[in-house]
């Protein structure tokens, strides 16, 4: 799990695999969800002091804000009102769109009218000894 969770995401692939970028990516994955800095550090496999340092910097810049305290643990959430955060989110969504487009399987040719040369032919149609498959599907 940790190996998989620690793999480079699409956002870091595009903008560089640095610790601040990885934290930013984590923040955008948890867009509407609050999180504890300790959990984030564990998931991203970075040291807690470094994570607190970067989150402190992000708080000063206005990227994150304190949300609530649960049993002495301070939770943080992404500040979606910030203009720069809106820009980051837009880029992150665009990265996800590209991943979705690249990985979605090509739709199979369900409608025979949309048959094109090079598509799969399920059955060939013969009229006597003449192969009329191409003619039936509107090919040359």
């Amino acid at each position, binding site marked *: 799990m940790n190996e998989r969770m620690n793999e480079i995401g699409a956002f870091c692939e595009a903008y560089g695999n640095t610790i601040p970028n990885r934290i930013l990516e984590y923040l955008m994955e948890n*867009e509407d969800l609050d999180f504890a800095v300790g959990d984030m550090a564990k998931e991203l496999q970075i040291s807690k002091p470094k994570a607190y340092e970067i989150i402190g910097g992000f708080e000063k810049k206005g990227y994150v804000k304190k949300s609530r305290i*649960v049993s002495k643990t301070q939770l943080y959430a992404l500040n979606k009102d910030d203009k720069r955060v809106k820009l980051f989110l837009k880029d992150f969504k665009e990265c996800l769109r590209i991943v*979705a487009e690249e990985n979605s399987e090509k739709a199979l040719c369900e409608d025979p009218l949309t048959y094109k040369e090079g598509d799969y032919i399920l059955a060939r149609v013969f009229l006597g000894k003449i192969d009329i498959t191409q003619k039936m599907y509107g090919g040359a």
Partner: protein
Amino acid sequence: MNPSLKAIISLMLNKKIIGGKHIPEEKMLKSKTKWLQKEEYNEFEKEYRDTINNQLILKIKKRTGKGSDWHVSLNPRKLKELYEMIR
């Protein structure tokens, strides 16, 4: 849409956990639902079950060292739907 479910789908899409690539369900759910209250968790569970029933997220039992665990991955045939959900 439930924020935890949105976070799970975003993470899986960002890390390209699609089709044959999978991660353990339990650890994933724990990390994204740790700070939820009971009512919020119940709401999440309902939506999560619907997502699995609609085959947007695929759930497979995988052999591990000590036995077997449920693993999850995104359905490659429904990536566009998933993207629309989190947009």
